[in-house]
C-alpha cells in the first residue's frame, strides 16, 4: 500500500513539476498551500531508509536504541536518517519546528526512517527553515538512500528554501507524517 501511495504521489509530483515548468509553479504552490498548511508538496518519494541493509517490519520487536539515536540534538537521532544540513533543534527550534522568525520551506522531500524505540518505520518530511543565513551549529550529513540532483525527489543537496520569498537556508527539520504501513 505504502509503495503504491508513494508511487502515486511521486508520479503526481513529477507530473506537476513538468506541467508547471515555467508556467507559474509558485502560483500552484500558493493555491495548494492555502488548504494544506505545512504538508510538504513536492517532491515526494519512496524515500530513504535508515537501516536499508536490515529492513524493519512494523511492530517487530524493537531493538534497544543507542543514546544518540534518541537524542534530537544528535545527528544519529533516528528521524535524521537523510538530513544534510544544520539541525534546527540546535538553532532555536526542535526536530519538527523551525526557529523563531524563520519560515518553513513549502517544498521538500520525503523519506522513511526506522524508529528503533517502537520498531516502526515512519514517513518523515525533510523541510528546511528559511529566511536567515546558516545557523552554523550541529552540522549533520546523513545520506541513506539519498540520490543526486537529477532525482530531485530524493536529493538533499539542493536548497529546499529555493521557492521561499527569502530562500536563505537556515536549518533543517524532520517531521513525522505518519507510520509507513506495509
Amino acid at each position, binding site marked *: 500500500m505504502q509503495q503504491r501511495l508513494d508511487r502515486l504521489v511521486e508520479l503526481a509530483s513529477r507530473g506537476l513539476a513538468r506541467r508547471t515548468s*515555467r508556467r507559474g509553479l509558485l502560483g500552484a504552490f500558493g493555491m495548494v498551500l492555502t488548504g494544506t498548511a505545512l504538508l510538504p508538496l513536492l517532491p515526494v518519494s519512496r524515500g530513504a531508509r535508515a537501516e536499508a541493509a536490515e529492513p524493519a517490519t512494523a511492530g517487530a520487536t524493537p531493538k534497544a536504541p543507542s543514546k544518540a539515536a534518541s537524542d534530537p540534538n544528535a545527528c544519529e537521532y533516528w528521524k535524521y536518517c537523510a538530513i544534510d544540513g544544520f539541525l534546527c533543534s540546535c538553532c532555536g527550534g526542535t526536530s519538527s519546528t523551525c526557529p523563531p522568525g524563520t519560515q518553513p520551506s513549502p517544498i521538500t522531500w520525503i523519506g522513511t526512517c526506522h524508529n528503533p524505540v517502537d520498531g516502526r518505520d515512519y514517513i518523515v518530511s525533510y523541510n528546511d527553515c528559511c529566511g536567515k543565513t546558516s545557523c552554523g551549529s550541529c552540522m549533520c550529513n546523513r545520506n541513506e538512500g539519498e540520490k543526486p540532483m*537529477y532525482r530531485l525527489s530524493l536529493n538533499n543537496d539542493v536548497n529546499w528554501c*529555493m521557492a521561499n520569498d527569502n530562500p536563505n537556508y537556515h536549518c533543517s527539520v524532520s517531521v513525522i507524517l505518519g507510520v509507513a504501513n506495509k
Partner: protein
Amino acid sequence: MRLTWPGACAALLMAVTGTAPADATPPLAAEHLSVEQLPARSPHWAYLFDFSFNNETDGRVYLYDGDKHRMLGQFEVGYYPNLAISPDHQTTAIATTYWSRGGHGTRTDVLEFEDNTSLTLRGEMLLSAKKAQSGAVSNFNVSYSADGRFLYVTNLTPAASFSIIDVAKNAVLSEVDTDACVLVVPSAQRRVSSLCENGRLLTVTHDDNGKETARSVSKPFFNVDKDPIFVQSVGTPTGVIHVSFLGDIYEIDLSGTEPRFVEPWAMTGPKERGQWRPGGQQVVAYQPHSGRLYVPMHHGGEGTHKVGGSQIWVFDAKTHRRIARWPVDAAKYGGVFSVLATQDDHPLLFAATENSALLVMDAMTGKLLHVEAKLGQTLWSMMNP
C-alpha cells in the same frame, strides 16, 4: 595594553621627532602602501571555491599558486554560486544571489564576470530568480560553449530549465525547458546535454540566436536506483566522465553527431566492490597529458557517498589499469573531499579535505609537496585556469 604616563610621553616624542633610541642597527626603510598585481597565469594555479557553509551568503574563491604555496588573491561569489572559467582563461562567470541587506532585503540574482587577470569585476547582467541552488558543486551547473560565445546556466525552481546567454551581447537569449533534466554539458555544434531522472541524457541543439532547433533523449545509460552517478563529473577532450556511487566509470563521448556511451568499467575488484567507494564533492579529476583519472576512495557502505577518501586511486583512463592507491592521512587532515589535476605536462594534484585542508601533490608520483592545514572554511570544489 596598559600605557604608563612616562611610556606614553616617550611614544609621543618618537612619533613627533621620528627618532628612536640610539641603536647600532640602521632603521628600516619607510614603506609605501601599494596593491599587488597578479603575475602571468601559471598552469599550476587553482581556483579554490569556499562554499562558506556556516555563513552561506559569503561564498568566495581563493586563487592559489601550487608552486609557491601561497594564496594570490580572492573574489567573492555570494550565495549558492555556480561558476565557470572562460575558454580563454580570462574570466570567471559567477551565477549567484545577493540580498540588499546581508541575508535579507531585496534579492538580486546576477551573472557576474570576474577579470581573472586583475581579480576585479569586469561586468554583470541580471538574471531571473531561477538559478539552481545546490550544495553539490558540479563543473556543469554553469558552462561556456567551446568558443566562449555562449554561457549556459542551469535553472531549478524546482522546475528545471537552462538559460542561454550571449556573452558579447550581455543578454539572455532564451530559456530551454529540460523536462526535469539538470546540468549543462556543452559540446560542439551548439549542443547542451543534461542528466535526467530516469538515467537518460537529454541533448538540446540551438542556433546562434539561442533558439532550440533539435532535441534528443538517449536510452538509459545508468541505473538511478541501483547505482546512480555523481553529478560532479569532469570534462575530457572529447566529452565527460562520471563516477558512480559503487565506483564504476561512465564516459560519454560528445564529439560526434550523437552522444556515444563508452562501456562502463569498474574501479573496484570483486572483493572491493561495495566495500571501497568514491565519496566527497569533486570526486574525479582527469589529467589529459598522462590520461590519468584520480578518485578519492573510502571504506564504507551505502549512504557514504559524501564521505571523504582515505586513499586516492589513480587509473589509466584508456586501459582502465589501476596505477596506484595513494594513502592520505585522513585522521590528520580529514578525508579527501575534492580532487583537481592541473592540465600541463608536469602536473600537480590538489586535494581538498573535509577539514578544509589543501594538499598539494605531485600528480605523477603522489608525493606530498605541501599542506595548507586550513584554507578557508569549506573548500568544496576547485577549478584550473
